[in-house]
Every structure is written in structure tokens, then in C-alpha cells.
């Protein structure tokens, strides 16, 4: 398999589907960029994270649409276009901006099929970049996937690896339900093996990235990489081995892969970049406490960000986020219990 960046793998998925299905369109702020500028340039920066190389030239004005800074209109338009037969992929540049268009997600797209008695479909994908680590501060760094996971009618993908972003994006674009797709902005440059061709990955199927016997570490998004590093270190230095499980989608959630692992190890550590209250970590912990209580040999450990806004100063941001040290401490506490 070829080694590619997360960004390249995402682009590959978008292109496969844009080439295959003309109902797929992409809309968002500065997706091409440069429109109306004095230089007359399009495909200016290929999207703010460089995910759309030459898409404007390739797909044209009707299928690759630069929008005004109007999040509610962008997401509302996607929902309306989906009802009318398109399969829109829209970008909300930073997940924090979902505040502007939550109605269109929560009250519109999520609920059409249910409210209309099963007689509609809303095949749309909302792509958005989330996460801390770049000193982007409180309004450009949040990990808000738990808020969206909470909404019935929406599916939520939070990939960690290049192969996963490709496979999950292919599935998202072919799914007839609305999907919110979270890319961690610090992952775009991460490399990994990516299979060639059309390789969709089903939603609701987690992946075990490390195998061990002493504890189960469930991690979301960028925290998978943090957790793998700690687990590799503990295996080498302390002979403690752990499963590292990435659910890959938080809605639907692969409960089986988590419960099977906890049944084997008897210990659970959940690592989640969002703040602790009503988090995915809390959700998974509650699920295991209810369905896997008998498997547990130690209290569940949650490693989350602080219950605070995301701070700006690099040291404060590090203190805010889960870290290798915090994950290691949680694993040791569990194993030593």
C-alpha cells in the first residue's frame, strides 16, 4: 500500500465520488478561494486546509461552489439541495462555527426523515475541522463531536488515520442519512498506508490498532495517535500491553468491539479530546458500566480535556489537552488497581 497523508487520502475520497456521481457537489467558504479578488485567481489555496487541489478547474462553478461567510445558508442549502436530489458535501471551516448553523443540523437535516414519516432522505455530509493543538484559541479549537453525536438522525465520523478518512468519507458520501464528519486539523499532515481504489469503510465498525491483554484504551480522533504512542512505550518499558481501539464513528458506535476487548482485559481507559461532561468518553464509560460491569476489574478511567474553554498560550493548551503523561497515568492506575 502507498503511504499518503491524511489530507491526500481525504482528497482521494472526495475525487472518487465527485468523478463517479454528478449529484455530489461541494460548497463552503473559500473552498476554492480567490473569487472576485483583484488577481482573478481561483483554486487559490485549494481550500483552507488544501484538501481540494484544482477542484474548481476540474469540477466547475456549479459543482464546486465558493459561498459567502453564511454558515446557516450553507448548511440549510445543503439540506434543501439534498431533499431536492443532490448529494452535497459542505464544509464548515472550523467546527466552532457550527454555532451559526446548529439549527440547520439539529432541527432541519437531522429530523426531516423522522418528522416526515420516513418519506424523505437527506444525503448530505458536513465536513468540519476540529481540535486543539495549534494555539488557535477558544473559538477555533473545540472538539464538539459529542454535541453532534447527541443528535438523533445524524451520523458522526471522527477518523484518526489516512486510510480511515478515505474509507469513511466514501461511506459518508454514499450514505442517505446526514453525516457530520470531523477532521482534526492537526492530522492533515499525518502519514499512513492508504489502500488504492474505491475502499469504503462501514460506519459503526471500530478498529483495533494495538493488541494487548492488560487494558483496553478506547480513543477518539487525534487521541488514537497519542494513545498508541503511550501504549507502545508501556509495552517496551513496563511490559504492560493494551488494546487500542478507535471506534471511528461515534454515531453509530461499535459497542461490540469495545465490550469484547473489555471482557478480555477487564480494564477500560477512554481518551477523548472533548471536555468531560456529556462527552463521548462519558458515553462509552456509561455504556461499559451498564453492559460490561461484570467484565471490569478496575474503575473506568477517563482522560479528557479540561472543563474549560481551549486556552491560547501553548503551555496552557498542553495543560488543557490529554497528554501522553496523563494517558500513561490513567493506564497505570487502572492496571495497578
Amino acid at each position, binding site marked *: 500500500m502507498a503511504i499518503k497523508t491524511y489530507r491526500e487520502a481525504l482528497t482521494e475520497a472526495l475525487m472518487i465520488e465527485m468523478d463517479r456521481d454528478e449529484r455530489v457537489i461541494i460548497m463552503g467558504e473559500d473552498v476554492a478561494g480567490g473569487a472576485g479578488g483583484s488577481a482573478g485567481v481561483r483554486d487559490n489555496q485549494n481550500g483552507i486546509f488544501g484538501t481540494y487541489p484544482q477542484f474548481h478547474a476540474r469540477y466547475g462553478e456549479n459543482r464546486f461552489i465558493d459561498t459567502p461567510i453564511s454558515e446557516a445558508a450553507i448548511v*440549510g442549502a445543503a439540506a*434543501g439541495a439534498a431533499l*431536492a436530489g443532490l448529494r*452535497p458535501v459542505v464544509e464548515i471551516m472550523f467546527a466552532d462555527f457550527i454555532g451559526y448553523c446548529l439549527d440547520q443540523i439539529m432541527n432541519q437535516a437531522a*429530523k426531516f426523515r423522522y418528522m416526515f*414519516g420516513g*418519506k424523505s432522505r437527506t444525503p448530505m455530509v458536513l465536513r468540519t475541522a476540529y481540535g486543539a493543538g495549534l494555539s488557535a484559541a477558544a473559538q477555533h479549537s473545540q472538539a464538539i463531536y459529542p454535541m453532534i453525536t447527541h443528535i438523533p438522525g445524524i451520523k458522526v465520523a471522527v477518523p484518526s488515520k489516512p486510510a480511515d478518512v478515505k474509507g469513511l468519507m466514501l461511506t459518508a458520501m454514499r450514505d*442517505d442519512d446526514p453525516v457530520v464528519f470531523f477532521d482534526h486539523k492537526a492530522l492533515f499532515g499525518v502519514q499512513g498506508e492508504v489502500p488504492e481504489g474505491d475502499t469504503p469503510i462501514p460506519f459503526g465498525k471500530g478498529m483495533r490498532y494495538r493488541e494487548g491483554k492488560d487494558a483496553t484504551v478506547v480513543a477518539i480522533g487525534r487521541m488514537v495517535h497519542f494513545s498508541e504512542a503511550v501504549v507502545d512505550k508501556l509495552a517496551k518499558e513496563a511490559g504492560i500491553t493494551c488494546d487500542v481501539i478507535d471506534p471511528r464513528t461515534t454515531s453509530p458506535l461499535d459497542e461490540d468491539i469495545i465490550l469484547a476487548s473489555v471482557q478480555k482485559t477487564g480494564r477500560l481507559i477512554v481518551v477523548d479530546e472533548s471536555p468531560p461532561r456529556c462527552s463521548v468518553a462519558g458515553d462509552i464509560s456509561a455504556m461499559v458500566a451498564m453492559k460490561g460491569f461484570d467484565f471490569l476489574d478496575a474503575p473506568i478511567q477517563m482522560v479528557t480535556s479540561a472543563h474549560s474553554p481551549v486556552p491560547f498560550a501553548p503551555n496552557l493548551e498542553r495543560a488543557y489537552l490529554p497528554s501522553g503523561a496523563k494517558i500513561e497515568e490513567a493506564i497505570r492506575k487502572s492496571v495497578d488497581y
Partner: protein
Amino acid sequence: MQLSREQLLKAYRQMKTIREFEDRLHEEIPKGLIPGFTHLYSGQEAIAVGVCENLNDSDAITSTHRGHGHCIAKGCDVKGMMAEIYGRATGLCGGKGGSMHIADLSKGMLGANGIVGGGPPLAMGAAIAFRNRGKGEVAVALAGDGSCNSGPVFEAMNMAVMLNLPVIFVFENNGYSEQTAPAYAVGAGKTDLVRRAEGFGMPASKHDGTDFFSVYEATREAVERARTGGGPSAFEFNCLRFFGHFEGDPQKYRIKGEVEMARDTMDCLKNFRHRVTEAKLLEGKDLDQVDAEVKQLIEEAVAEAIAAPFPPDTDVTKNVYINY
């Protein structure tokens, strides 16, 4: 453009059906069999019908919490609607949506909408699909005066103009945004909401919303323009709500006699009857026959709704997703 006898009769039948539907709900609601909140459209019929008589099933509309009239005008099954409002399994949405969420995609009715300002961005998005498909379909956002103070509506109007989309924004100014009048809630152009739409760079005009012919003609031109790539338009149609914001609204904010005045001088059905009989386009007995047929239809709709079963409890988790 002269409408044919059939077109006139159909327009009257549609308006009368809405009136009878709403007036009957007003009588039925106090009896306690209709759950939840209901917002009635009486007094505004000429707008829904005047707009929708220019549209086909392949054209789309979005609607509001006050959506019964829009649904009927766009061709939704009246008995299915009544059953839905009663929360029954035979309802258009299987009892899942109720009064505020009636939809029928096969008729291009993209849903009544409980969120004020929810519809216009959706209609604008449907217009993107129509533009790309290139078959001349048009989307119409039916919205109220309340929504003209909502940010997403402004965003949708701007995007419609910059992308030159086949979408028409219709603001029905029925005198009250819930319980507050535009005269208070609109900063600039208090009596002229449509100037806002004009400010976004589209043709926009204001007409008498109680005159079917005026609504029909104004919309016809805009629909033709949108079908042929001429881009969006906007309208303000004035009228007065005959009932409260919701059924049960004590309406202390209205002076005594306001509704009576409206029923006397701003009743689109009376106006229509007067116009077509004066001009000898239809006879009074033609219209009386429609009245009788509509009364019978609504009678049956209520009886059938009350007799229909509620959805089974197991439906609660059905159709949240297509697959999960």
C-alpha cells in the same frame, strides 16, 4: 392573463378548502382530541393559492409553522393532513410530525417548519439542485413577516442573488410576528418589509395578499423569470391573520373589532367571489357547489381522522435513520 373557468374554479376550491380546514380545526381543537400546538392560516389563503397555482409538482416550496394552507395549495392530501394533525397512523407523516411538520416530497412540499426562518435556506438549496438539473424547476420559500428579522433568511437571500438561483422569497405579512407587530419589530421600513429583499439585489414588490389575482399575476412573472435563468425575486403580500398566533392565543394585543374588520374587508374568498361573479366569469351557484363539496370533504376528513388508529408505540424509533 385570463384564467380559464377550470383554473378559476380550482383556485377557489383550493382557497375554500384551506378556509374550511382551518375554521373546522378552530371548532375541533377545544374538544381536546387534537394534541399540541396549531397555527391557523385563515385570512391568508389567496397567498398560498395564488403562488402555488403557478407551480408544478416538480417545483418545491418550503413553509412555516402556519403551514396547512401551503400544504393544501401545493396538493397535499387533505385527509392525510387532517389525520396527521390528529396524530394518527394514517396521517401524511404517520403521526410523527403533526401540524408543524406536514410534508409531501412527491408534491414538492418540503415541509412545514417549526423554526421561524428555517425554510428560506432550504428553498435556496433546492434551487441549487434545480439550477444544476437544468429543467427549469423553481423553489419558493413561503415565509412570514417574523422571519424577515432572522439572520438565516438574509443569508439565503444574499446567496440566492450571488448564485442567481431559481428561488422566490415570499413574505406573508399577516400583521403579527407571533404576538408582536412588524411595526415594532422591524427597524427600517416598518411598513415595507420587501425593501430588505430589494437591498439584496433582487426584484421585489409588495401586493395585496387578500387578492388572489394580484398574488397570482405577480408570482407568475417571477416564476417565469426564475425558470428561464433570470434569478430570484421577492414579494411581500399583506393580509391579516383571522385567528391568533396559536389556537388558544387570547390575542390581547389586538384592538376589539380588528378581526371583524378583516373578515369584512380583507377576506380573499369574498373578494374572489365578488370579482368573478361581477365579471360574469363564474356564477354564484358554481361557487356554492364548491362550498358544499369542500364542506363534505372536511367533514369526512375529520370523521376519518378521529376513527383512525394512533401509530404503534414501536414506531418511536422507526425512521430516525435509513440504516444505523
